[in-house]
């Protein structure tokens, strides 16, 4: 029994090792003065300096953040409306149809989303660049926001709304003073999820960026195709630290949301592509 346990532990440790090896590998070599991803020659911060001196890269990082924040804010707002729409739907069949339509973009492969949005934008006449990227990020983040918000809405007791109405609250009051505060944790979770999806997205963005405009993942892809450059390593170390901050932040939001709940926060955390 104890023996079996040990075997299991070894397996788990092995999985963790493999899972983290590439990330640690990248971080380790970001300090290599040798300029390659093998043979560590000496410690240097040169590549970090390069990252901070690279104005093009910094603009791209800002682009990525602007797109992520803007698109997740917009997607969350539309997501709230969507969750309300689905929640209010009385007819079961219409409701299920709405839900399946909502989930189409979640199960659809990124390549198809990217290609079809490319067709859409060219047909409508939207120039590829900032707006096309923003629109597509809003578009694929909406269903995620809906899915994070809807369960909270369904947990809400209908008598809460009835009581507010009986006490003379207008529809608007019910929405802003009863419903929205109640589903706040879901809204935060949706926003966060949309944020990480947007920060992480490559495939969709790749199709709709056009030339001249770029986000971080598209830039990393084009640099990686040119070969190894340690400034990417330095950049990825910085991104890793930022990601850890995000995850910890998200974890605490979920924990707060589930404080009196039964589910564990980590199991609830969605996984971006």
């Amino acid at each position, binding site marked *: 029994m104890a023996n079996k346990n040990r075997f*299991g532990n070894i*397996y*788990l440790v092995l*999985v*963790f090792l493999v*899972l*983290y*090896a*590439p*990330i640690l*590998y*990248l971080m380790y070599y970001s300090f290599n003065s040798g300029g390659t991803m*093998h*043979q560590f020659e000496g410690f240097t911060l040169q590549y970090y300096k390069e990252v901070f001196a690279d104005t093009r890269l910094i603009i791209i990082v800002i682009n990525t953040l602007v797109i992520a924040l803007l698109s997740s804010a917009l997607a969350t707002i*539309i997501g709230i*409306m*969507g969750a309300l*729409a689905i929640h209010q739907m009385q007819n079961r069949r219409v409701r299920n149809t*709405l839900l399946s*339509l909502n989930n*189409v*973009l979640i*199960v*659809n*492969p990124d*390549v*198809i989303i990217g*290609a079809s*949005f490319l*067709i*859409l934008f060219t047909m409508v006449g939207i120039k590829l660049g900032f707006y096309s990227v923003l629109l597509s990020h809003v*578009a694929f983040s909406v269903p*995620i926001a809906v899915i994070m918000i809807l369960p909270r809405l369904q947990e809400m007791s209908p008598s809460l709304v009835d009581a507010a109405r009986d006490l003379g609250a207008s529809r608007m009051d019910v929405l802003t003073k009863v419903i929205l505060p109640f589903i706040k944790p879901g809204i935060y979770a949706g926003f966060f999820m949309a944020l990480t999806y947007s*920060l*992480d997205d*490559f*495939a969709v963005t*790749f*199709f709709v960026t056009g030339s001249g405009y770029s986000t*971080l*993942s598209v830039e*990393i*892809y084009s640099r*990686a195709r040119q070969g*190894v450059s340690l400034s990417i390593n330095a950049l*990825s170390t910085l*991104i*890793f630290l930022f*990601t850890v901050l*995000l*995850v910890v932040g998200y*974890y605490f939001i979920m924990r707060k949301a589930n404080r009196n709940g039964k589910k*564990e926060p*980590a*199991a609830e*955390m*969605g*996984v*971006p*592509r």
Partner: protein
Amino acid sequence: MSGNTRAAYLLPYYLWIVLFVAAPVVLVFYYSLFDVDGHFTFSNYAQFLTPVYLSMTLSSFWYALLITVCSLLVAYPAAYLLTRTKHKQLWLLLIILPTWINLLLKTYAFIGIFGTYGPVNAVLSLVGLGGQQLLFTSSSFVFVSVYIFVPFMILPIYNALEGLNPSLLDAARDLGASKWTAFRRVIFPLTLSGVRSGCMAVFIPALSLFMITRLIAGNRVITLGTAIEQHFLVTQDWGMGSTVAVFLILAMAIIMLITSGTKRRVRHGK
């Protein structure tokens, strides 16, 4: 507010459904009926049914299947062992954390790891196997893909295992089932929904991968995703690209129908 304004504030959502859910799919179908010069034709479909495209589709499915099976084989024991650990929350968080890191960066790391002078080759020569060409092979492609997808498989299986009623297991043991029998007859069948949603979360993206094929497999593996990207962004043959996309959509719809009835929250592993 009257009924009209009530509907009005939901308008952005419905607009989103029409513009970004329905219209793109319709447009893909529409474009698949035109050739490079913009003439209406069925030739794209005829071309898709030639051996070149069919064998590509077949190999795409084969790799996706291989990746899914490998991920499952790695993920199930890991998920099972995770539910047995003391600080489950922490370990689970540690499994999830790498998935939040940009996929491109992780793939990029493997360029170094599998490189000619990378650590894997160093170990291989130490053992006496000598240097191997690891990068730009189909096996490294499968390995990296499995690496990327494993957490997505672990999560739903973990959730299914956690949702299991422990008294069922006690009952099986009381009734004299061995550990293995209890697993085979009780645990595994009851966590099948988790396995299914995990497989969905891996299989569909695996069908449409394209940057891993480019960066790691060096165009040695061509998936449906690579073909679509190639047609849309390189050869500019949107019609043919759309046709491949149509078949991918159809394949997905069929997969969904087969596995329907299970609760699916693909990326949330619920």
